[in-house]
């Protein structure tokens, strides 16, 4: 017998629901992304590579990747600390703090962008103190990094938090009974359980940061070769009617998105096999 596409069910409406889902998905997501891939294939791989290796484009991609990586990296210990404090300790204002974690998700990126610029510009609340020390934050890659730390923090906290909450306290007790110090127990008993969540959070934070636009462009200063990010370069190419250039950068970024999505799925598959949950 041939394998059925769908298991029989008494519940009606499968064809309608799935049909609508697929049609909407195709129209809104697949067709537009397909158009990008189509235009990229017209350009050809060698053309895309040579457009990407253009000095300004290459530099913009490099800046986007390095700052996104460093922001996600910083958010691993930061996010872990926040998740730990929120899950394990009770203190006044804990719920408020917990609600605040999602602020970067809820606050429009342009608003975050101008707010961060107001804080870190040389005449800003924090920027003026940094200027006294001779440090420049806004309009440098450091400013980009700060904006990316802001937008990607919730990804790590929100992936680690539920897993940490479900950690079986008995394994910690066992570790303590066996003579492990508290630090040792946390390091070698709890941390391994959290690893898949940390990796997933890191990948999500990185993927979001690489493509981030609104919160970055105000604080970045957008100096070519110094603080110009890849998404901004797409916008600039479009404004110059350089559709081939814009398509090439977008194709590379889309490929990265797919790779990150694949990595996240692999991590979760590995976690399911290793720990029996995501």
């Amino acid at each position, binding site marked *: 017998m041939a394998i059925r596409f769908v298991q029989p069910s008494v519940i009606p409406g499968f064809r309608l629901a799935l049909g609508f889902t697929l049609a*909407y998905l195709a129209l809104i997501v697949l067709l537009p992304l397909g158009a990008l891939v189509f235009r990229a294939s017209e350009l050809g791989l060698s053309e895309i590579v040579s457009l990407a290796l253009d000095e300004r484009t290459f530099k913009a991609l490099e800046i986007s990747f390095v700052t996104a990586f460093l922001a996600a990296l910083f958010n691993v210990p*930061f996010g872990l600390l926040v998740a730990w404090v929120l899950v394990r300790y009770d203190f006044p204002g804990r719920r408020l703090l917990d*609600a605040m974690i999602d*602020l970067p998700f809820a606050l429009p990126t*342009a608003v975050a962008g101008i707010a961060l610029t107001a804080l870190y510009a040389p005449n800003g609340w924090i920027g003026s103190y940094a200027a006294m020390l001779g440090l420049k934050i806004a309009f440098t890659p450091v400013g980009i990094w700060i904006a990316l730390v802001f937008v990607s923090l919730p990804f790590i906290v929100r992936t680690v938090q539920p897993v940490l909450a479900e950690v079986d306290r008995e394994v910690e007790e066992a570790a303590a009974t066996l003579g492990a110090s508290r630090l040792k127990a946390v390091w070698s008993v709890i941390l391994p359980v959290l690893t898949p969540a940390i990796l997933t959070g890191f990948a999500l934070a990185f993927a979001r940061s690489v*493509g*981030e*636009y609104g919160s970055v462009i105000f604080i970045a200063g957008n100096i070519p070769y110094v603080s110009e990010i890849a998404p901004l370069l797409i916008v600039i190419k479009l404004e110059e*009617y350089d559709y081939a250039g814009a398509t090439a950068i977008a194709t590379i970024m889309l490929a990265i998105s797919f790779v990150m999505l694949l990595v996240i799925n692999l991590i979760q598959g590995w976690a399911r096999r290793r720990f029996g949950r995501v």
Partner: protein
Amino acid sequence: MSDVSAPARLMSDAETDTPARRLRKPPRLPTEESPLVRVSLIGLAVVLLLAFLLLPLVAVFTEAFRQGIDGFVEAVNDPDGIAAIKLTLLVAAISVPANLVFGVAAAWAIAKYEFRGKAFLITLIDLPFSVSPVVAGLVYVILYSTSHGVFGGYLQSHGLQIIFAVPGIVLATIFVTFPFIARELIPLMEEQGTTDEEAALSLGATGLRTFLTVTLPNVKWALLYGVLLCNARAMGEFGAVSVVSGHIRGLTNTMPLHVEILYNEYQFAASFAVASLLAALALVTLGLKSLLELRYADELAAGRRH
């Protein structure tokens, strides 16, 4: 998940008790950190969160009211500002219901049936989350631009304009908010299974009636939760909308784009005034979201219980 573990709760009970009881406070459990470590960790987390998350929010409102209430009202009550607010509301009013219908249909198909390729379908639904907003805008330009688009010739000959017009803004917004409602509903409806629906059907209810009176009440809070997040993003989207909008004042400027234009014209107070409206929307969204998590935790999807 919102509570601390049982031993810790016992301890905090003891702490709030009479001084006599406090003397007999049980020794620190081996699975807990010393009070000093505890306080330092909490302190460090609070200070970092206030600096990284709260300070920008405070900056928005401070800058918005730098020239007093009058300056704020003047900035918001400007024809281009009003047009931007109206357009933002219109875009959200179209894109949120569109994604709501999609989310319900997708969740119904995915959660109530077993079919091949389901995991792949879920991955595709989540795809817009991992695409850069600028790329999201660009793909619509590639498709619908009258000068360079794949369908450009057709649109040109029929006098239709999508890019640099409202339809493009709506499409780009739908793209970036695509997964919000579906991803709230799918895990919850999978968890709930099909027994309730089967019972209703066996008692003679029609499919539609089963959906309206059994399924929908079961997922209403999760639905609201998804709508809330979807709406916040729809009203606040910047990158994707920026690419397709063309920034035509009074016509294709949404609130976030208006913030950018004012800012780039050095009208900082006005820019922050409009931004503060969006920030207020974000705060209301977070408040309602926390309320839903607090009161209806069991009726939200598993991952949302905190």
